[in-house]
């Protein structure tokens, strides 16, 4: 890929995520600058106190305005007699600094959390709008990782590394300005170790980065091993392999620990060399400063202020190298997020029609393949008269579920691959959301959200009023089951609640579909986990409630299919037989065989 365009798209992405937080970031930078300025001021006040107010030295190196201010108050000697004024000034500066520091922290967090929210929200709603085919192509775990840890990396890049580096740079620049204002030569001496310290930690973290990564990965291996052991506890016990498991775990545990142990010395060296370097910086300032004072080039208050600035700088300078070296991690993460954001969302190109969908559904010479080599459907044509029921019988891989995915436009039907029409309108021209809303689809393996049963049933609807939820549940034979749960319909399902059986899940999904008075209803093998009596019960309820709807039933059960007005038998992507139950059961084909098998039993 062209690096220029990816850089552009990465920048555009950052800019987009920064929407709504740029001003806050600016505020936080200003607050940070103000706080750094205050940091610089209090050593200056002390200096004035020592040199001018108490020491009686001429205020030659002070700014004119400051001298004028003091003269108006009563002069430096007067100030020395009223030292509380300077103490109050220290406190006043401290108050301003406290406010600035508070402002920095809060605005920086507010900005970065706003950024994170914008990024997460756009990722989520983008992912929801990506085509179904995209979802099928990507592994869930990988997408989740991009949405979580890569996003965290991106966030800390902006809110911690960028802003922290900027903060440290502001602090350094201000220190240089204030120090140089007192003594240029000592400033050079005091700052001379700074580049060494920064470079040292930069190269150290760059070099050690791989080792840290290795540790992280091996921790992952160890963690996965524990996970596997716990999840597979039945296998471990049944084969009596506790000892093997222990040995395996101990070995990896030892290896992982060893990796950290190997890091102990380099880390310890790094810290102690860092200590020596910053110690040397202070020592240099102490000695040269003392010498300058003795020679009369500098006043003692200035000397003390220099020492304060050095102490102020030590930690930020030691952090700087690490910050810079860790910035490179962010590039990869941004790229991985951009890969999702650059994928194209589902689009309705001019498909705006919202026709009445209770008419005939026609599949006209439909062919389809997921990837170009193998056709799942070949030249399939059939018509379902509006308001009638179509039964579909077919084995694994016969293409029956694909038919329904095409009907709901979950996969777009390519040009020249035939067409699907409802009431004479090609579904390519129908508004996708409108189309899907008009087709109540119950899938073979229903997906339930980890919310309450009620919320699951009313998921697609605007309201969840008791009467309609109950009515839908009654037809789906779910009412009694739900009432038997501790919190009735308000019982949570999934991770944080009860675990439903396959049949119960299917019934929730059916009730969910029934909430919508849709003109088209599709049941894709959705009663397979329900026992025969309940199946019959549900079908009777459905027939009564949806007299006007067009229904497509995919099933293996003849008792389910026989009530259909028309039945097609799909075999490897083609229609093998078509007709009513009475016609097909004597046609001598697959349907007849199935009838015989099921009747015999």
């Amino acid at each position, binding site marked *: 890929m062209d690096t220029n365009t990816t850089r552009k798209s990465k920048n555009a992405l950052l800019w987009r995520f920064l929407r709504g937080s740029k001003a806050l970031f600016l505020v936080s930078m200003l607050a940070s600058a103000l706080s750094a300025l205050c940091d610089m001021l*209090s050593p200056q006040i*002390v200096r004035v*106190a020592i040199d001018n107010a*108490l020491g009686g030295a001429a205020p030659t190196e002070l700014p004119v305005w400051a001298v004028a201010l003091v003269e108006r108050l009563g002069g430096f000697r007067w100030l020395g007699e009223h*030292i509380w004024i300077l103490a109050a000034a*220290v406190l006043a500066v401290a108050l301003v600094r406290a406010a600035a520091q*508070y402002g920095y922290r*809060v605005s920086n*967090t507010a900005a970065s*959390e706003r950024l*994170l929210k914008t990024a997460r*929200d756009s990722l989520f709603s983008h*992912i*929801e*709008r990506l085509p179904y085919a995209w979802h099928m192509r990507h592994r*869930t775990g990988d997408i*989740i990782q991009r*949405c979580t840890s890569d996003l965290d990396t991106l966030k800390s890049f902006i809110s911690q590394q960028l802003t922290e580096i900027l903060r440290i740079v502001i602090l350094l620049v201000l220190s240089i300005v204030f120090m140089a204002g007192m003594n240029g030569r000592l400033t050079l001496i005091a700052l001379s170790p700074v580049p060494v310290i920064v470079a040292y930690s930069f190269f150290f973290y760059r070099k050690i980065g791989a080792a840290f990564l290795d540790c992280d990965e091996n921790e992952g291996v160890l963690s*996965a091993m524990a*996970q*596997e*052991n716990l999840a597979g506890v*039945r*296998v*471990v*016990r*049944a084969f009596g*392999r506790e*000892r*093997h498991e*222990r040995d395996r775990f101990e070995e990896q*545990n030892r290896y992982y*620990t060893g990796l*950290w*142990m190997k890091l*102990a*010395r380099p880390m*310890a060296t790094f*810290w102690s060399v860092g200590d*020596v370097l910053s*110690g040397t910086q202070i020592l240099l300032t*102490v*000695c040269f*400063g003392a*010498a300058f004072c*003795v020679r009369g080039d500098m006043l*003692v208050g200035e*000397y003390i202020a220099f*020492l304060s600035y050095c102490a102020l700088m030590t930690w930020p300078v030691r952090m700087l190298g690490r910050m810079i070296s860790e910035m490179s991690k962010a590039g990869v993460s941004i790229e991985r997020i951009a890969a999702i954001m650059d994928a194209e969302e589902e689009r309705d190109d001019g498909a705006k029609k919202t026709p009445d969908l209770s008419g005939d559904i026609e599949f006209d010479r439909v062919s389809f393949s997921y990837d170009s080599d193998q056709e799942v459907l070949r030249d399939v044509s059939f018509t379902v008269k509006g308001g009638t029921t179509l039964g579909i019988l077919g*084995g*694994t891989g016969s293409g029956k579920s694909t038919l329904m995915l095409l009907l*709901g436009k979950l996969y777009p039907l390519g040009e020249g691959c035939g067409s699907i029409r409802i009431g004479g309108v090609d579904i390519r021209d129908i508004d996708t959301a409108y189309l*899907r809303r008009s087709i109540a689809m119950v899938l073979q393996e229903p*997906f339930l959200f980890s919310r309450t049963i009620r919320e699951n049933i009313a*998921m697609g609807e605007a309201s969840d009023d008791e009467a309609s939820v109950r009515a839908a549940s009654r037809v789906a034979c779910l009412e009694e089951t739900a009432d038997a749960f501790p919190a009735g319909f308000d019982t949570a399902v999934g991770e944080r609640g009860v675990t439903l059986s396959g049949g119960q899940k299917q019934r929730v999904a059916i009730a969910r579909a029934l909430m919508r008075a849709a003109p088209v209803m599709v049941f894709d093998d959705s009663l397979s986990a329900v026992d025969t009596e309940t199946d019959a019960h549900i079908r009777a309820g459905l027939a009564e409630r949806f007299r006007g709807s067009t229904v497509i039933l995919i099933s*293996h059960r003849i008792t389910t299919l026989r009530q259909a007005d028309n039945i097609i038998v799909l075999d490897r992507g083609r229609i093998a037989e078509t007709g009513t139950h009475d016609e097909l059961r004597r046609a001598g084909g697959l349907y007849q065989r*199935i009838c015989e*098998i*099921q009747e015999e*039993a």
Partner: protein
Amino acid sequence: MKKNGLLGLGFVLPYMKKYRPEIAGLVLASAVGGLIDIGVPLFQRYAIDRFVTAGSLRTLPVFIVIYLAAILAAAGLNYIGCVWGMKVEVCLDRDLRDAAFNHLQTLSFSYFNQNSVGYIHARIMSDTQRIGELLSWTMLNGVWQLCYVVGSVAAMFVIRPSLAWLVTAILPVAAMLYAVFQKKLFTLNREIREQNARITGDFNEGIMGARTIKTLVVEDKLSGHFAEGTETMRRRSVAAARVHGLFAVTMSFASSLALSLLLWRGGVIAKEQIGTFSMFMSYAQGLMEPLRWVVDAVVSFITTNINIERLRKLMETRSDVVDSDAVLERYGDSFSPKRENWEPLHGDIEFRDVSFRYPDGEELVLEHFDLSIPFGTNLAIVGETGAGKSTLANLICRFYEPTEGVMLVDGRDARERSQLWLRSGIACVLQTPHLFSGSIRDNLLYGNPDATDDDIRRALELVSAAELVDRLPEGLDTDVGEGGDLLSTGEKQLLSFARAILAEPRILILDEATASVDTLTEQRIQSAIDRIIRGRTSIVIAHRLSTIRNADRILVVRGGKIVEQGKHDELMRAGGVYCRLYTRQYEDEATSAALDR
């Protein structure tokens, strides 16, 4: 509480013993390091009083040498602290993890049924880590900074008590304030973590449920819900930042307050003793940060108590199924079996007047149950999903012990031999195949590490999995990924069949072994089952009924209890539960078979 000593540390003490020299050294190094740090302002005082004020640089060389020595000593102590701290942390961590993991290997199923994998996993991985960190870095920092605080307060009092009061009066107030903030922050941070987990869960749902979400057209609704979640997260984080900001501000303001007091009350002495004044200034400004670390350490010691308690609870949990001392004496335990004392397992099983209730259940699922399963019997257990079909298999494997009555193996009470002895003669294939990361060979050898490649080959052929392995790029050495996830469920199940066969079991248990595989694999497995149960005692818990028609005995389970038993023909004639189940399933199976042909 008492027996675990201060803050539950009594529990960790035995693990710390091994690292006594390092821990002692760590404490000592941090203490000395903290004391040396006190020297920096003293050096500055000396420089000002002796060089600047006195106007002479005579002692400068000596000063430099001593100063350098102090820097190097502090660096050296930091080095030692770092190396030992690392050692104590990771080793303690490792030992605790090993101990927890090993202990888990001895626990019975009731523990695993009552606690989720995630919960137990956190005990092994994160609790141990917190404890290791506490006893190394937190301690190192705490002691170092405590010594610095105490030492510098002492230095101030020695040099000029009147000024020392000004600076130290602020300390207790500041310390108390930090503690209050810490507690508040602890709660806030936990809430943020929980909200973060919820958002990850929402991402997961939005991706896993893509198809349902699209067919229901609820993209906007979910995005709205998601945005609410992220908004909560944002608000909580900003709220925490306010507290955190206030905390930091209070701290630095305390330093400035000390400085201001010093200037106000002590400014006068700056005239004569400028060095002393400068020293006090450094202490006033430099004390608050170390104080914060001390409070941090104290708070960590308190909060980590939860982790210690949880780990202790795990380590004190005992298995429901234990071998008696006499049995352990003769047969050895799971980690060091005395195989030389083991008599061969024949494979007769008998339940004699057994009543059983699951440890967490209320109802008896077996009541005065008698059943004899002589070697070579093919026993089938059928029933609806969730009817309690696995109970017998669990008892046979001694995953649970009968509440009353006895289970006999080869005519003797099962409790007279060790669990490992029994399980060495049993192999299981479970509904959800579970493989371990590693190669296919590693996995197949799981039940029998001594099997040769020829044995493996034979087993694979027996279960029609040879072709599957041949197709893979590296054959038996192919990596199966974490939990075997690089293979399909069907492939994993075929391999777990081969794994069971390789163990050469006298007793074979198939627990709904074909329930989660596709039709094609199921057919292959079904034809293999007939071959592999020959010459063994087998217990087939069936999801599909067509293959158990020839079983010597069929038990029908409903609502956790055995409601019918007999041979296929007898049960069909009786026209009861079995007859109904069979009829329906036969229909389904035959239909699928005909359609997929």
